[in-house]
């Protein structure tokens, strides 16, 4: 009697072929994207989305074509930060057009589609069991977004990942080894501990790990013009990857983010200068990738 592997195909639906087709479609759609960069952490609330937005703005100012992809389907925030909450999703000849800010930064975030007063509910035909399938549904949705969008020709696709150390690993596998990673941490022991786990997870894969950013490394006081400590002076843990930048917290950042404007345009602030230095640093490291 024949066994499973003696039989070609699956009787008509060609499920494996469908999955391969979608993967090929994604490869084709991303073929004109020069660099893919994921901003991740493992820890929530460390400023990944804010950093992604600021970094994109700084790269744009350096003359690069940049699109931001909000991979946090459950808590999308980039549409708000980019001032694109009221944007319309419009089909073009080669897929979904990516909405752009007035400065020309593409931002694809489900926050443009689902208003902030709506909880995102992944439906399930298995009653009360949506949690069982949620991760699969999330990746299927993300995959459809990658395959159905016209990404065009880009220097950088910056992908803002959701929190969770496991998400770093899952997205690294999903996005493939062409996607480089930058991790974000706060100076606190708790945050550094979680990020260490993410470093450890990512080192098992082939994705380039460019380094990490220490966010909120201090507080910028506009009155005295100095950066003061924001967290207790903890020992910096050894992540065994390069420290790319230490970014001080600037209160103007919160205001600008709410207004959908990047801080990177304020050249006089230490935070903005640090972001520009980070962009330059990342650019050099990405260009040096084989």
């Amino acid at each position: 009697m024949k066994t499973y592997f003696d039989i070609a195909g699956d009787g008509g639906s060609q499920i494996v072929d469908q999955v391969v087709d979608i993967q090929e479609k994604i490869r084709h759609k991303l073929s004109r994207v020069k660099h893919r960069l994921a901003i991740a952490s493992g820890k929530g609330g460390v400023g990944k989305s804010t950093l992604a937005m600021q970094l994109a703005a700084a790269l744009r100012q350096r003359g690069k074509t940049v699109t931001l992809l909000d991979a946090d389907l459950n808590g999308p925030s980039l549409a708000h930060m980019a001032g694109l909450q009221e944007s319309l999703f419009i089909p073009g000849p080669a897929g979904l057009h990516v909405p752009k800010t007035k400065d020309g930064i593409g931002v694809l975030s489900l926050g443009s589609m689902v208003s902030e007063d709506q909880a995102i509910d992944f439906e399930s035909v298995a009653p009360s069991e949506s949690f069982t399938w949620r991760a699969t549904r999330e990746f299927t949705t993300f995959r459809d977004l990658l395959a159905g969008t016209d990404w065009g020709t880009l220097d950088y696709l910056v992908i803002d990942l959701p929190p969770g150390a496991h998400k770093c690993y899952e997205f690294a596998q999903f996005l493939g080894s062409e996607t480089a990673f930058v991790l974000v941490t706060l100076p606190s022991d708790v945050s550094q501990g979680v990020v260490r786990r993410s470093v450890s997870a990512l080192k098992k894969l082939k994705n380039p790990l460019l380094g990490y950013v220490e966010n909120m490394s201090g507080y910028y006081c506009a009155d005295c013009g100095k950066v003061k400590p924001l967290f207790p002076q903890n020992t910096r843990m050894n992540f065994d990857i390069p420290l790319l930048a230490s970014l001080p917290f600037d209160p103007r950042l919160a205001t600008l983010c709410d207004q959908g404007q990047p801080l990177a345009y304020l050249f006089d602030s230490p935070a903005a200068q640090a972001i520009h230095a980070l962009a330059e640093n990342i650019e050099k490291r990405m260009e040096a990738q084989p």
Partner: protein
Amino acid sequence: MKFLCVECNEPMKLIKKEAAVVPSDKGSLTVRFECPSCLYEIAMLTNPFETQLVTSLGVRIGGQTVEGSTAKLEDSMQALSGTASAPQVSVNMGKCPFSKDIQKMISAAGDAAAMPWTSQAAVRMEKMPEFVRPMARSGIEKYARDKGFSEINEAVLDEAKNVFGM
């Protein structure tokens, strides 16, 4: 998963009939196969968990999604000739994780009668991620109505693209 006709030692094939894949409103799925040699038929019956597994993968059983929404779209695309009605994208489709929210928003926005779409515009819509189509359709039609257009064509889509800064 594959099925083998033990008698003939032949893999069974999905039957080429309209009712090859039938979803139930209780989350079950009936998929009919037949042996190409002896034509013996069997039906695979899934429980809601198994149906959900397939739905979650976003693949098509027998060329259609479990809910049949994509097949509806494909049927409508085939019927298009010059001008067509709006793409028949169900907001209740299983591939859309946000369908309930989108349904609410569309209802809240006062979903007027669907506008006609030209075949070229409808083809563009088909290239978008399936789960964003209902919201996109609603927004584009509202834009077109506000601007006094009587149909959605590529020029309307391009104009909307420019208006929204893309």
